[in-house]
């Protein structure tokens, strides 16, 4: 119970889930409508316009409804709390490794909110804690992976944390080599079409991964066959230490999308409403058979690359300060509050619930058994050939 939060709005907001609540101005329709203007060359310390719910673009869909907004906020905050917990555990040596999505949560929940969990396929990447939570993965499941436990549904403790996988939610297992999931997502989309399923495939990756050959091969194939895929680049301006200007020419993904003759958009990924709209539009296009989209969400990487990284060698302190100021989590909270979507008391309760959930998830995961040596040779093959069964001497 502590580990499986409801798919509907969290309990404290069940009133909002019950019936329509007056939408705040600016949440359903932005105050500054107008076409998206991609911001090539933007530095991560300058995340661009962040007006909540503002901006519809030519391809933009509707804004999320209020229950969805609250669920989005909830998962952003839950992801944040889980990331902080895992990071701290890694500092203490209680888990071997941490990689966080802090600063990217707004975009991630928006991506998830535009999908049908368990029906659309998702190929997430290692920062997508908020995305998978919003799809249905539980806090405890995140912690089981962090501790490398047998019950971890993503890999039974075999993969590093944040190598998400959950068959029930059609979250496909990913590897560490970046970019490989991109043609795979195209292949899944092809299969869905062949099977007559109307599933859409959404695949995420960093701007660093867009440099791989697999990116090109996957996008070209999807474009040729107009496959129902949404390619999402979570552009946080860095690949470990390498800045975007040494990674992608020209900066951003808008030119690339045009290069493949497919729909493209670049949105402020610190703004969940804007991101939701662009994603929903891309998903609608894909489902309607109108082909793939390359969507860039401009986000912040608040932490070092991973717990093994020290970003002081390549990131000036001012930049980090500026980033914290642009942190999407407090900003979205304020906007929801100002718009009257949620009250201060409700927020307090929600955060208390999250804190308790994270504690419970951590405790449960810590207690959960680790895999044993007997588990090691399992699942190499469907039926283990001899050499697998008898490897140990």
């Amino acid at each position: 119970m502590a580990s499986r939060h409801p798919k509907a709005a969290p309990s404290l907001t069940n009133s909002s889930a019950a019936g329509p609540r007056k939408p705040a101005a600016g949440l359903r329709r932005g105050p500054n409508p107008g076409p998206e203007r991609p911001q090539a060359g933007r530095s991560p310390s300058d995340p661009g316009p962040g007006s909540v719910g503002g901006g519809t673009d030519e391809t933009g869909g509707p804004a999320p409804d209020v229950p969805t907004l609250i669920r989005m906020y909830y998962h952003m905050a839950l992801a944040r709390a889980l990331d902080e917990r895992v990071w701290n555990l890694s500092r203490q040596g209680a888990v071997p490794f941490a990689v966080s999505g802090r600063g990217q949560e707004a975009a991630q929940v928006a991506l998830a909110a535009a999908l049908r969990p368990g029906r659309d396929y998702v190929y997430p990447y290692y920062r997508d804690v908020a995305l998978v939570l919003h799809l249905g993965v539980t806090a405890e499941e995140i912690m089981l992976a962090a501790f490398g436990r047998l019950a971890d549904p993503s890999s039974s403790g075999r993969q590093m944390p944040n190598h998400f996988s959950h068959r029930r939610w059609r979250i496909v297992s990913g590897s560490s080599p970046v970019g490989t999931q991109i043609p795979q997502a195209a292949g899944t989309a092809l299969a869905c079409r062949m099977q007559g399923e109307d599933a859409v495939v959404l695949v995420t990756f960093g701007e660093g991964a867009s440099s791989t050959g697999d990116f090109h091969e996957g996008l070209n194939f999807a474009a040729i066959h107009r496959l129902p895929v949404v390619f999402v680049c979570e552009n946080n301006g860095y690949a470990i230490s390498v800045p975007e200007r040494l990674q992608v020419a020209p900066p951003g993904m808008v030119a690339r999308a045009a290069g493949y003759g497919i729909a493209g958009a670049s949105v402020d990924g610190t703004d969940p409403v804007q991101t939701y709209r662009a994603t929903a539009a891309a998903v609608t296009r894909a489902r309607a058979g109108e082909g793939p989209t390359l969507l860039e969400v401009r986000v912040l990487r608040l932490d070092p690359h991973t717990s093994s990284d020290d970003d002081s060698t390549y990131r000036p302190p001012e930049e980090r300060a500026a980033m914290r100021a642009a942190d999407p989590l407090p900003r979205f909270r304020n906007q929801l509050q100002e718009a009257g979507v949620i009250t201060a008391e409700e927020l307090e309760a929600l955060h208390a619930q999250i804190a308790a959930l994270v504690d419970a998830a951590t405790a449960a995961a810590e207690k959960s058994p680790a895999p044993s040596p007997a588990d090691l040779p399992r699942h190499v093959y469907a039926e283990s050939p001899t050499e697998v069964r008898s490897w140990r001497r």
Partner: protein
Amino acid sequence: MAEMTILEAVRRAMREAMEEDDRVFVLGEDVGPRGGVFQATAGLHRQFGPERVLDTPIAESSIVGIAVGAAIAGMRPIAEIQFADFIHPAMNQLMNEAAKLRYRSAGAWSCPLVVRAPYGGVHGGGLYHGQSVEALFSHIPGLRVYAPSTPADAYGMLRLAIRGEDPVVFLEPKRIYASVRGPVPDGPDGIGLAAALRRQGEDVSVVAWGMMLHRALAAAEALATEDIAVEVLDLRSLRPLDEEALLSTVRKTGRLCIVHEDNAMCGYGAELAARVAEKALFHLDAPIRRVAGPEIPGLPYCPALEDDVVPTVDRIIRTLRDLATY
């Protein structure tokens, strides 16, 4: 049992699998109207249409990557790599993705796909149209590597590969695609993965697969006239390896010759020697000999040099004779 060539057997296996199972489809370069550069897919495009027989861009990494993604969603892709020499761009998708998906997800996801790759030396193909790649893939846990040498096995093992739940690298001996004919059973039942004893003999064992199996058989035939009884083992599946069959023949003859086209160093033959040196050492009456390609980057174009690169019947005969009289 119809008589056919290896190429016809491969084609028939794909056709029947596609007829029986909607999930099976074919993708690769020129597999469509052209029917593949070797004609392995000839007729499939006409029969099954462009939806199930996809001409892909020249992008081997994504040919495999797309197959992986399709298999994940429940399809049964058969990917053709035009020549094994061009499989290298796909190694990441094969070794890090297809091979590891089931393991890394603890069985939640699997990746049943077949990557067909014609391999081995041909006349005038140069460095990039005659490579053997079995050693590289046989090293990788999670992959299966099949290397049939007869039409019956080309058919049966391909059916097995398509039906199986694991990723298979299916290596087709292109040099003998059309030249080796043989009976092919009417259906896939009764086909296994065990190594096949193609000839019995007491004096010396030779282990081979693919095109080399036929040269090993010819060598054995020739040596029979010298009263040397050669046992010929066709491995068929390289990963998994039928270790028991290997050890049995060595225990019987005490002399082992391994033949492959690939260069010797870290080639597949090394594994066979290592297994014997660990598990049947004291049955050996002679050193283990490998008849293999030279330590050069590939077969030269100039056909005059072919016999100095691809093991000949003559070289196998000499080695077997040496061993038998050791």
